[in-house]
């Protein structure tokens, strides 16, 4: 078995359990999803309770997990460096799992340490053979909250919602760096990738997917069934596109369009994929932007 990618997300719980049933909710929920294991850490429980629970849940289960790097989504909780270290220690000692990164769903130091993002911050002086410590990560204190440039407004605008829009979702997750083959990034909100999404990878978001690079992996925007979600990328070269409940296949590489583009050798241009009348449309982003930001829904 390969590396286990763990996505522990508080919003999953919110979505799956009725509100106020929280009293029965254990502070730590371990759930298998296919080859993945999700650790959900209750974001409202005090941290020492979570730590204690985690400790006892992991004890004796260490054989169940293959060793590897995992990522922890802390939901709306914002961990201090000490608290992170504590969680890290528990996982290390009790399961042999190593936490490659912490991500936060909402509070905002949303920062995935993938690809170049990680490379940029990797310790150059790291000793050979030492793979213990993850690269430095930005914590809430020194991160710029997206809200500084009114991400709420932007997100609303980008998702075609009016200000009293009924959809509620987490804020955007920003992945800095390339998403590589075999990697899956999943987020209950909008997803922004500052890099390429390479072939063989998957990006899933309940909201929109914005790729500031070339999108060649498999995207699923509106993964929770939102047909108003969109996929935007500097280049869409994905073999399949999924938005909400719809799916589209890229035209065969031998098609007229593909041939024309090869011949013209035109640079790829920013592209948007959206649903209109139940079908996925792929168009240049330039002309669509006004319509998009005006909040005109594509569906219907």
């Amino acid at each position: 078995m390969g590396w286990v990618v763990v996505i522990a997300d508080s919003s999953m719980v919110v979505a799956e359990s009725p509100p106020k049933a929280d009293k029965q909710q254990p502070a730590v929920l371990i759930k298998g999803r296919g080859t993945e294991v999700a650790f959900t850490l209750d974001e409202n429980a005090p941290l020492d309770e979570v730590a204690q629970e985690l400790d006892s849940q992991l004890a004796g289960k260490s054989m169940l997990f293959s060793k590897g790097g995992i990522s922890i989504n802390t939901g709306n909780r914002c961990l201090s460096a000490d608290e992170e270290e504590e969680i890290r220690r528990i996982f290390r000692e009790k399961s042999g799992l190593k936490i490659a990164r912490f991500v936060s769903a909402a509070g905002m130091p949303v920062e995935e340490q993938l690809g170049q993002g990680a490379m940029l911050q990797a310790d150059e002086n790291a000793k050979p053979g030492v793979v213990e410590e993850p690269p430095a990560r930005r914590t809430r204190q020194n991160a710029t909250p997206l809200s500084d440039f009114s991400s709420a407004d932007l997100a609303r605008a980008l998702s075609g919602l009016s200000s009293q829009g009924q959809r509620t979702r987490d804020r955007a997750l920003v992945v800095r760096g390339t998403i590589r083959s075999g990697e899956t990034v999943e987020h209950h909100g909008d997803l922004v990738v500052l890099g390429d999404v390479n072939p063989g990878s998957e990006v899933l978001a309940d909201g929109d997917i914005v790729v500031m690079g070339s999108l060649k992996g498999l995207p699923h925007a509106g993964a929770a069934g939102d047909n108003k979600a969109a996929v935007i990328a500097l280049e869409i070269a994905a073999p399949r596109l999924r938005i909400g409940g719809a799916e589209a296949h890229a035209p065969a590489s031998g098609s007229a369009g593909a041939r024309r583009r090869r011949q013209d050798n035109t640079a790829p241009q920013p592209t948007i994929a959206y649903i209109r009348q139940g079908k996925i449309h792929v168009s240049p982003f330039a002309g669509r932007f006004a319509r998009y930001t005006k909040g005109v829904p594509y569906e219907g």
Partner: protein
Amino acid sequence: MKGRTIVITSGKGGVGKTTATANLGTALAMRGHSVVVIDTDIGLRNLDVIMGLENRIVYDLVNVIEGKCRLRQAMIQDKNRLELYLIPAAQTRDKDSITPEQLKALCAELENDFDFILIDCPAGIEQGFKNAVAAAGEAIIVTTPEVSAIRDADRVIGLLEASGLHRPKLIINRIAADMVKRGDMMGQEDVESLLAVEVIGLVPADERTVAAANRGIPAVHDGRSTAGAAFTRIAARIDGEEVPLKEPDARPGMFNRLRDMVGIKGRAYSHA
């Protein structure tokens, strides 16, 4: 002085990991370093053949790890008496015969006595890969300019980063310059833009590499091998020397050689 442990990996098989390991090991030793190359492809060992040391194997990596022999007993010195030693893989065992921790401990021990420890990683991303990667502090990815090899390299880069090995370096092997020129093969820029990692070497497709491997003499010993020369330059770069990347030339004719000598910058051919 503490040595550097570098894993040479690719994901896909047959792209030249073992050849690269043999050549880089030899080239680094020729630069005056003490080098150990470890074949971790247990069950499918090849590095010994490429280095021409097959007949001298008595003990292997698994023997060392199981404590059946001393470390030094399993280390086979290079034919040319360079400060270059091979620890061969066991042929009759499998990848599960060793653990990442054991290899890590072995390399940590070797780092005290040698400048470079090169680990030849098996193809795939299973146990053998995990063993090889655990011990390394740096990684070199070998790929060929083919979509399948690049896809696998991409996957491996992701796995390396997940296990804490950041900034892997890339060797693009078996570049056929005339094909690149015709637009039938990806060039350096194409591969670089796909994988977004630093390229440390461009190795031309060179028949002499095959001949050298068959004779068990790494191509870096062959003064006329263009691939050998490329590996020598990569070794210099690993050593921290600034050597500009040299694109394999489609026409190593008189004019080009003259041009290189005079130092006129020719128009770089485009990959478009």
